[in-house]
């Protein structure tokens, strides 16, 4: 922007006054100006505009002089549109024409300056008011200005301005005060102020300055070094008050301070009449603008006007600038026909490459072999560019996983130091002395060193180190998860009653189906009947031999107890008031006489084996009703559930070991012709017409209706002692003298549930009729009660939970409990002991 300064209007009085005296001063002033204009160009564009707008404004003024100030301001705002162009123009101008001639500057007379001060303060006041108005309405009116019109008007205005300038010059001649050199511009303002109307105040001072200056047409004669004065970065420091509202100076005669600290006096403001006159008379009035900052009027030169005109015409502000110069394309993009190099192509550029062919063939092969897979994300192998220098292949020993490194050796502590701290020393003064050395040279070699190294080596070499996973198992882990016994109540847990009365081993007991009475047979040749609830012996029968078996008739219509001793089977009617009198009498009547046999002829086999007879009078009085004499000793009597049929076991009877009898008709039969071994025991199926015949090692199940064997079960046992059939009929339990207890399912007899909890021969087993309980008695002195739940689901195994071992009997002759029986509906267990007592467990 330095150029502007130099292009100052030669007619400007301040330039003249200054320039003559001192070049330096002048330069300073110029610099100041340039700075200010520059800064305002950047920061306050609006003000700049105001300056440029002077042309249309002046135009309007000419046409509508009488109009109010408001309208005029409107026009000014229209002109603000020009602002961007003007800005550009400034640049252009600055770069193009930095000519300022000192001569022209000198043209301004000193006298002009003096006039400015007078009217300065007045102008300022009005200026500040109107400024705000303009800014308010500026935007709304922007689009109204007409280009062509304005240009014409500008031309007219230019002439008038020139006229005004002339007037100014005249006025200046009558100037009064001398103003310092740098404030010379104020003179112009002063001149303007004299000649122009209020509207001139609307221009921002600094902006107007810069425009004015740029528009000044006079070319300098001397071309100064433009860089030397380049003050484009500097501020306009003609007025040093800074960026403060100018109205603060309204009450002062000055308008700020120049660089030297002297007040810049406001130019004399003309009154309205003078302004009007000035407007009429001053030919330069129309090209005079007001510098707000310095409060002076500035006359625009022709060159400025020309630039403004070009800007308004939206042309390049520079006069001689050719926008459409011919373009010279230095580096061509076109392909030239002739290459730069004339060398022919190499041979390999047209001979197919072997390596490429090989590669293609390889890829083709891979494709054919389907080795190439597309759309497959390659696993990114993170390459770590490191090399484990110390990696030792040998550390991973063959077959040793989870290798455990040898423990590190303990580092020597303070105690091993050659001069140990005193707390590490022995209390024994001798040992203490031996441990203290005056210097390290006196420390002897470590005596155990070799030994320790050797031990260490041995340790590393020989001690096998492997991380062995220790099995965290306790002995209870192998026990199947069974419900708690408490949850399986009721079951017998303790002794409730002791039935005392027998004098010898009780071999057999039988509970009456109603549960009130218990019959027992003993070696003391008595059969006793007990009251279960009190343990009272109600009846006792003497028989002629050691009782092997007693068994109540299960029928509710008969009150009959089968007693087996020696080779006799006796049916006793206890005949007390134990059951309904009618039943007792009925029983007596049935057995008083032999039933009519009709045409039936007994087979010889049967006749030789069995003999039925009624009781004699004596025997009748004893309670005997029928006596069935067998050919050998009887071991057992088993009733069919209906109470009419029963079977007896004669162990030494060979093929006649099992005999079937019918009570009502006094008939017997020998069902088996062959002896399959010594018969241990027999049992009836509770629901079906099946007979379980138990030999020492086998259980044979016979269908009595079809008279054939349906199943033969290997009992997994060397010598069976007893059998119990589950009331459901699908399971049976076998106890053996070899301590085993086997739970069989009829459908799957190959794999019995083996219960091994007995330590000695199992004597007797029994199922409860109602509860899922079973019990077994063994010679080791325990009766074990188990929960044996059977499910309707055939696949599901029975749930067998040992519940309780019952102890209480005493041993007699290594025998403990010989028979057990369950109460028919309560969870009570009766045990017949060798100690001549029967115990009830509840």
């Amino acid at each position: 922007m330095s150029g502007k300064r130099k292009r100052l209007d030669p007619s400007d009085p301040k330039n003249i006054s200054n320039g003559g005296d001192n070049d330096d001063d002048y330069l300073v002033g110029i610099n100041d100006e340039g700075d200010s204009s520059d800064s305002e160009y950047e920061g306050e564009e609006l003000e700049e505009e105001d300056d440029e707008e002077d042309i249309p404004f002046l135009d309007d003024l000419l046409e509508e002089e009488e109009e109010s100030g408001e309208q005029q301001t409107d026009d000014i705002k229209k002109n603000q549109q020009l602002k961007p162009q003007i800005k550009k123009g400034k640049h252009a101008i600055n770069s193009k024409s930095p000519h300022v001639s000192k001569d022209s500057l000198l043209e301004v007379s000193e006298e002009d300056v003096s006039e400015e001060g007078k009217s300065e303060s007045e102008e300022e006041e009005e200026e500040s008011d109107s400024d705000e108005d303009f800014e308010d309405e500026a935007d709304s009116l922007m689009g109204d200005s007409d280009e062509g019109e304005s240009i014409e008007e500008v031309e007219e205005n230019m002439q008038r301005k020139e006229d005004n300038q002339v007037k100014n010059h005249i006025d200046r001649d009558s100037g009064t005060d001398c103003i310092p050199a740098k404030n010379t511009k104020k003179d112009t303002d002063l001149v303007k102020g004299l000649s122009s109307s209020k509207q001139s105040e609307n221009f921002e001072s600094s902006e107007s300055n810069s425009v004015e200056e740029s528009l000044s047409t006079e070319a300098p004669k001397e071309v100064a070094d433009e860089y030397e004065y380049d003050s484009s970065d500097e501020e306009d420091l003609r007025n040093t008050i800074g960026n403060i509202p100018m109205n603060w100076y309204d009450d002062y005669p000055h308008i700020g301070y120049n660089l030297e600290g002297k007040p810049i006096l406001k130019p004399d403001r003309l009154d309205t009449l003078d302004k009007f006159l000035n407007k009429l008379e001053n030919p330069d009035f129309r090209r005079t603008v007001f510098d707000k900052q310095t409060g002076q009027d500035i006359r625009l030169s022709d060159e400025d006007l020309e630039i403004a005109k070009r800007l308004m015409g939206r042309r390049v502000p520079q006069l001689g600038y050719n926008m459409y110069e011919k373009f010279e394309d230095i580096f061509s993009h076109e392909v030239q026909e002739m290459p730069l190099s004339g060398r022919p192509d190499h041979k390999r550029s047209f001979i197919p490459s072997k390596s490429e062919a090989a590669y293609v063939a390889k890829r083709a092969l891979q494709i054919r072999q389907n080795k190439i897979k597309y759309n497959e994300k390659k696993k990114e192998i993170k390459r770590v560019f490191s090399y484990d220098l110390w990696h030792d292949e040998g550390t991973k020993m063959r077959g040793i996983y989870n290798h455990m490194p040898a423990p590190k050796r303990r580092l020597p502590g303070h105690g091993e130091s050659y001069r140990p701290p005193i707390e590490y020393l022995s209390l024994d003064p001798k040992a203490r002395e031996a441990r203290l050395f005056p210097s390290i040279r006196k420390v002897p070699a470590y005596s155990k060193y070799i030994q320790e190294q050797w031990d260490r080596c041995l340790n590393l070499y020989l001690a096998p180190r492997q991380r062995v996973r220790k099995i965290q198992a306790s002995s209870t882990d192998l026990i199947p998860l069974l419900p708690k016994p408490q949850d399986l109540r009721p079951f017998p847990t303790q002794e409730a009653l002791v039935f005392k009365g027998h004098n010898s081993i009780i071999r057999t007991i039988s509970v009456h189906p109603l549960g009130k009475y218990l019959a027992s047979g003993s070696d003391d040749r008595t059969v006793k009947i007990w009251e279960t609830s009190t343990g009272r012996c109600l009846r006792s029968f003497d028989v002629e031999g050691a009782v092997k078996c007693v068994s109540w008739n299960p029928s509710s219509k008969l009150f009959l107890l089968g007693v087996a001793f020696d080779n006799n089977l006796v049916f006793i009617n206890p005949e007390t008031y134990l059951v309904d009198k009618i039943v007792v009498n009925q029983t007596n009547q049935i057995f008083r006489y032999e039933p009519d046999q009709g045409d039936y002829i007994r087979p010889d086999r049967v006749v030789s084996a069995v003999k039925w007879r009624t009781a004699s009078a004596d025997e009748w009085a004893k309670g005997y009703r029928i006596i069935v004499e067998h050919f050998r000793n009887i071991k057992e009597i088993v009733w069919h559930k209906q109470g009419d049929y029963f079977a007896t076991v004669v162990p030494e009877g060979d093929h006649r070991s099992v005999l079937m009898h019918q009570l009502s008709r006094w008939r017997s039969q020998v069902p088996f012709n062959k002896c399959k071994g010594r018969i241990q025991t027999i049992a009836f199926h509770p629901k079906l017409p099946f007979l379980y015949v138990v030999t020492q090692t086998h259980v044979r199940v016979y269908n009595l209706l079809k008279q054939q064997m349906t199943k033969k079960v290997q009992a997994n046992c060397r010598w069976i002692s007893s059998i119990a059939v589950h009331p459901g009929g699908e399971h049976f339990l076998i106890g053996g003298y070899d301590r085993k207890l086997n739970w069989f399912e009829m459908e799957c007899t190959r794999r019995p549930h083996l219960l091994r909890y007995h330590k000695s021969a199992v004597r007797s087993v029994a199922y409860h009729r109602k509860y899922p309980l079973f019990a077994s008695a063994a010679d080791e002195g325990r009766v074990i009660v188990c929960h044996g739940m059977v499910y309707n689901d055939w696949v599901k195994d029975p749930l067998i939970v040992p519940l309780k071992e019952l102890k209480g009997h005493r041993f007699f002759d290594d025998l403990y409990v010989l028979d057990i029986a369950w109460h028919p509906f309560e969870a009570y267990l009766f045990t017949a002991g060798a100690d001549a007592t029967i115990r009830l467990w509840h």
Partner: protein
Amino acid sequence: MAASLQKMNDAEKLNVLVKFITKQEQYAVPGASVSIPADIDGAGLNKVIQTFLKKSGATIGSDFPQFEFIVKGQFLVGPLKKQLDEDDISLEKVIEIEYLKQQPPPTPKDSLQHDDWVASLQCTDKWLLTGCYDNTLHLWDAEGLHAGKGEKAHTLTIPAHKAPVKAVAWVHTNSPTKTFVSASIDQTAVVWVWQSDTNTVECVSECRGHSQSVECIAVSPSTKRFATGSWDNLLKIWSLSRKPLPEEEEEAADDDDEQDRKKMRGSTKKPEKKTPIMTLAGHSESVGSAVWMSDEEVITGSWDHSLRIWDLEIGGLRQQFNSNCAIFSVSWSPINGTILTSSADKFIRLYDARISDGSIVQQKYVSHTKWVPSVKWSAVAEHLFVSGGYDNVIKMWDSRRPKAPLYDLTGHSDKVLAVDWSNPKFIVSGSADCTAKVYSSEKDV
């Protein structure tokens, strides 16, 4: 109070504020609350009470009564704090402790030797009736028992039944002509009239109808009817009013029995044969025990684990409670209206049939070690009852003290089959050791 609070701050000796109350006016103490150590037991509390009474001028002699203490309806057994903790009672509030004079221990008075097990017995003001397993009934002079006369008190032996006698009960005892009933395994119940002045007994009527052993017998409060329960699962109600029936036909089957009985009695008069007024079927197992609640209500306990209340007006079941084991004995107290049952486990249970919701089992008395065949409320005391068990012990209980009995009455050497406390003076028991034992019990309420 301030001092007691200070004591409470002492952490080592935890104190509680208690207030003593009593219903026995002669032993009343001031009603102010006092602070006592929390771990005090019955003996300590006794001392506290005695101190109070001394202050109020009572003379404390050696015969000064000991007291029992009741905390929140429970007898104090052991340290106070333990009981408070168990019952979850706050130690910070004032605890009301009721105390009462300790029940004096029953003293054994006599042992009556029988020929066989004594299955049942009942004592009235003056006379004791026992039923024996040797088919006989025995009458004893209660006055003589009190004097400890023993065998001399034996008044009469009645060869009453053909089978062990299971139950006996008095009907009328006021006039010289006394009436009682007996039941036996021989499936009959017999009504007897005994002229106490002439000491002659007469079989008034024979009740046939049960098809199995008659286990229990109970006379209604109005003494017009009695009930029998039997092993045939039936409860039968019989009338006691004697109305001359037309001449019955002699059943051939009964001939022998009748003649036997006549012989035994030495009486020529033919007993009246009775049929039950009502038969109540419902139990699935034998009826072990029956008691009357009122003239129209009978409670039965059965071996089928149920306790049933029968309404005789409608002739059917009114309420049923199931337990988990066979019930041997039932006792109902007209004083407090609750039912005690003893059963085929070791426990005595207290039922309140009037409670409709929640558990009707109010208490469980645990001390017997074997089955308990009999239990009996005291005739006069609200909270006392006795029980006899197969563990040979008779126990006297306070119903507020379920964890321990008041007294254990030992002496029997075999199973105790029956106990009775109908006469407030005597606790009598029959046992399998062929004796009936008499204990005198003083009860001052």
